[in-house]
């Protein structure tokens, strides 16, 4: 293909048009996100769909979340052992793994894993329904797709991510414990008591607030890209990729702002 042909296929958009499109997308996303919560106060409430989604999102993500948590804790212990050992502070490994996992790594890595697995799943499932007119058919049959499809996914993701993060934190601590005991020769009880006793209210509150926010972001972004998919299978593929990229970036960026906000609210440790 000649370079001219290639360039002629690229659609050039003026900066003002580009800005308009982005603002419209943010507006549509905000409306969808607000409606997904507003639907909780309207009948019918699709409890069976919520349970089904909770099973798919929560139970389905369990293996990758537990493995990620375990090996993150393990590698954290391994990497910090050398530095702490130099200062004769190897016994602080439990504290370090505990604080790192509970405050940051547990919520963020679990969020990224769930985003990769479920934001893509939601975008592709809803996107396929859009391009095959199933969403239009649902509306034509008198059912609100945001109520039937979006709200159950949002609620299930928020609830399940909360519990997945707790499990990931625990498995992270377990991974750290295995490395500390098996490779570094630390005492099992000493590790756990130092890991447990170092945690304070701020750590737990920060660590458990984040999954609620991340869960909301993952599900609403996944659903938004799915519901906005256009242009057949290629459009569904694009929506899937964008859902994962956007939700991952937002998790990392939001993590900073939430951490800063909670520092101000609760005070830094």
């Amino acid at each position: 293909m000649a370079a001219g042909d290639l360039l002629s296929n690229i659609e050039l958009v003026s900066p003002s048009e580009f800005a308009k499109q982005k603002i419209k997308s943010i507006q549509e996303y905000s409306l969808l996100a607000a409606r997904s919560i507003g639907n909780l106060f309207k009948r019918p409430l699709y409890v069976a769909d919520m349970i089904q989604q909770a099973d798919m999102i929560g139970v389905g993500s369990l293996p990758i979340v537990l493995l990620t948590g375990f090996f993150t804790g393990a590698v954290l212990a391994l990497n910090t052992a050398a530095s702490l050992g130099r200062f004769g502070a190897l016994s602080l490994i439990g504290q370090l793994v505990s604080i790192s996992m509970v405050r940051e790594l547990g919520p963020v890595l679990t969020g990224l894993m769930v985003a990769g697995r479920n934001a893509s799943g939601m975008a592709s499932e809803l996107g396929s329904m859009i391009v095959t007119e199933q969403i239009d058919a649902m509306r034509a049959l008198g059912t609100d797709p945001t109520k039937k499809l979006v709200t159950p996914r949002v609620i299930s993701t928020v609830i399940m991510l909360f519990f997945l993060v707790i499990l990931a934190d625990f498995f992270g601590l377990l991974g750290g414990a295995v490395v500390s005991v098996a490779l570094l020769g630390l005492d099992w009880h000493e590790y756990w008591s130092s890991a447990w006793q170092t945690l304070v209210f701020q750590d737990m509150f920060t660590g458990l607030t984040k999954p609620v926010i991340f869960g909301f972001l993952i599900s609403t972004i996944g659903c938004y890209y799915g519901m906005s998919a256009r242009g057949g299978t290629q459009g569904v593929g694009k929506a899937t990729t964008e859902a994962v990229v956007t939700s991952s970036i937002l998790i990392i960026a939001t993590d900073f702002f939430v951490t800063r906000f909670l520092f101000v609210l609760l005070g830094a440790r």
Partner: protein
Amino acid sequence: MATPTLPLEHRQVNDQDPAQDAIVFQEVVMAFDEKVVLNGISFRLARGETKAIFGVAGSGKSTILKLTLGLLKPDNGHIYVLGEDVAQMEEEELFELRGSLGMVFQEGALFDSLTVRENVAFRLMEKHEISDDEIEQRVREALSFVELENTIDMYPSELSGGMRRRVAIARAIITHPEILLYDSPTGGLDPVTSTTIIELIVKQRDVYKTSSLLVTHRLQDAFMMATHQFDRKSNHMQPLPRGTLTEVPMTFLILRDGKVIFDGNAHELAHTDDEYIREFIS
């Protein structure tokens, strides 16, 4: 058995009382980006009447159906469905009205993760007030109407194209809607299956007197509907005796460049002097 057709003068858009008709379009304008698809179209569909809509690809035929359902909002004009202006209604209000309408989408648009039973029962299950036994009975009735009772536990992916359209018809008619909208129900099907689908549409028209809009590319399908009526005794459609064609409540609407260029019955269509229409139907 057939309902007498409406006199031609009654087929003009009635500005006074749109509630008397099943559907009324008044000066509807619809554009996608810069492209004007419908440029001030007006027509009416009387109760009990079936109207076949023709036009070249991209002429706005399917758009008319989506506007009727309120799935799209017009840029201008009024669309009255059972007396209510859907162009002015909120999505929440439309869900109620859509309970009186049934739509058969181009490719069926069946929910691929649900079985045929769940697809057909979807509307009833959403009401949350009908017993499982009644739902089962009504699903079987609807499926027996389209002669597909044996597919009740199958998934859409296990059905042929024609069977999927018939299941879509069963899903659309299960609540006995007052208006049915068919979007190219025979598109891409072989002639035998197309005739089966057309027979079902004629059956719905003649047995239940449902008002319908039918979008199609196949002129022969619409002519078959205009020249046949459903015979309950033989459970098949039969050709009308010669000279009785205008007694079928069936009209034709042709779109060109965003405008309605023809709105009349089969007899008027066959005797039109318009060159474009003559070429279109030849």
